[in-house]
């Protein structure tokens, strides 16, 4: 059953019965997920080219891999920094079946004599088009607000002055990693719903930080775990892969991810029974230009979902950047695929390490870095 159905079931029947009767709980989330992108193999040109610089619809892609492989990052912009059209939008257009202009230049070699190419590609023409994201599906995330006298444009959206609003970015109780807080069923090799297709978890996500403060039931109270994922872009749907533009910040990719959680025991049933009132996160003032912003207060997702939160004595309207509607659709779709045996639930081949530290970047000498 879906995460929401499971929580209801536990309320009426208790943990023991739920652990016995329910096999799998499906979770879902749809939100802006930076640290995403896609790699392509375009096929070889005649005469062949070893692409050095690559552009897809004017957006630079990284070509320093081999002759005709390139990686396009979701947040990459063109040289004019047009924030309405970045790598994420090119990826969405490809998923929509559109053709995209490919330009590449090269220095030319004896084996790859060609020095430039200007052509069109689509998902039909390329050998591989693979979504590969190094950090998605954050387990909990901050709440952003703004105490300054100016509107702030951030990756957490538009923040109105004088605590005019607050935004948050987690699907809360339906979000995958909040239902399995210690990653017992989510690890390397876990099959997932990714952008409307089936994909896999390939590693811990970057900035994986399981050591944050947790609630009594183990739910992280700050951004903690995340996952690196992979999947075939050719199988994905624009319903769950969307280019997003954040004014004066840049672009990001809206991605739908769903993870099935097998209820192995009562402990996992307890984990999946968690509800928005038991999941808390921290409110930060984004006008504080620091990597270590002060926590204004801790707040539950039920308060955030109510549409208003008390921050510094004021009633502040709240907004989600994560679509509850799509998260539910993903959980439902995953449930149906499992019931129809179109989706097989895998045991991870390797668990994530719980010893990861969250390191900072400081200006240091060569010796200090050693």
């Amino acid at each position: 059953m879906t995460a929401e159905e499971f929580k209801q079931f536990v309320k009426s029947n208790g943990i023991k019965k739920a652990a016995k009767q329910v096999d799998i709980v499906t979770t879902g989330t749809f939100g802006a997920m930076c640290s995403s992108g896609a790699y392509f193999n375009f096929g070889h040109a005649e005469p062949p080219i070893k692409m050095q610089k690559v552009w897809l619809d004017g957006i630079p892609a990284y070509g320093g891999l081999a002759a005709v492989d390139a990686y396009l990052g979701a947040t990459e912009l063109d040289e004019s920094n047009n924030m309405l059209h970045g790598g994420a939008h090119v990826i969405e257009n490809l998923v929509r079946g559109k053709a995209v202009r490919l330009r590449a230049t090269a220095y030319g070699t004896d084996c790859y004599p060609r020095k430039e190419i200007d052509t069109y590609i689509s998902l039909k023409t390329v050998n591989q088009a693979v979504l590969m994201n190094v950090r998605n599906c954050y387990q909990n995330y901050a709440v952003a607000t703004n105490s300054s006298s100016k509107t702030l444009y951030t990756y957490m959206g538009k923040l109105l002055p004088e605590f005019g609003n607050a935004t948050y970015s987690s699907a809360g109780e339906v979000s995958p990693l909040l239902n399995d807080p210690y990653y017992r069923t989510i690890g390397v090799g876990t099959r997932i719903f990714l952008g409307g297709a089936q994909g896999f978890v390939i590693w811990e996500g970057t900035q994986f930080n399981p050591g944050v403060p947790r609630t009594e039931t183990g739910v992280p109270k700050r951004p903690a775990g995340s996952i690196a994922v992979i999947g075939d872009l050719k199988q994905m749907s624009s319903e769950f892969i969307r280019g997003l533009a954040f004014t004066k910040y840049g672009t990001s990719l809206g991605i739908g991810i769903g993870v099935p959680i097998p209820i192995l025991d009562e402990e996992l049933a307890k984990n999946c029974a968690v509800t928005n009132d038991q999941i808390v996160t921290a409110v930060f003032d984004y006008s504080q230009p620091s990597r270590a912003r002060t926590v204004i207060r801790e707040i539950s997702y039920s308060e955030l979902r109510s549409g208003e939160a008390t921050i510094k004595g004021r009633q502040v309207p709240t907004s989600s950047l994560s679509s509850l509607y799509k998260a539910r659709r993903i959980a439902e779709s995953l449930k149906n695929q499992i019931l129809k045996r179109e989706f097989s639930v895998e045991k991870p081949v390797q668990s994530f390490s719980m010893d990861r530290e969250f390191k900072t970047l400081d200006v240091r000498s060569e010796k200090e870095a050693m």
Partner: protein
Amino acid sequence: MKTKVVLNFRPEAANTPITNNLITKHHLLVNILRAEIDEIGGKMVLELQGKTDDIRKGLEYLKSSGVGVRPIKEGVRRDDDICTHCGMCISICPTRALALDAKTGKVTFTEEKCVACGVCIDACPPRAMEILL
């Protein structure tokens, strides 16, 4: 009755107290939703409230003063194919025209409540909101 209009005026009309005249001479309640004035003229979006006859006379007065008047039915429009129902727009909408339907999880848009302030336009990540003036 209530109506929303877009006014376009040349620089010379900017010196006439047109909104004041609408209030005092035509007994209308005037709510300025948007105003942009520069050296080549200006644009204003007003919500007018009053008796049907007073509104008609008020609009005639504006036209006779050389102000371009265009009614708007929809100031802001949402493209439902583009909206992902994330909800970013909800907390910045000053009139709560954008709200979350807790049952469906969808973001609802009540056009009658919208005052076409446009604050949602550049805040929408998938760019589903459009202002038509």
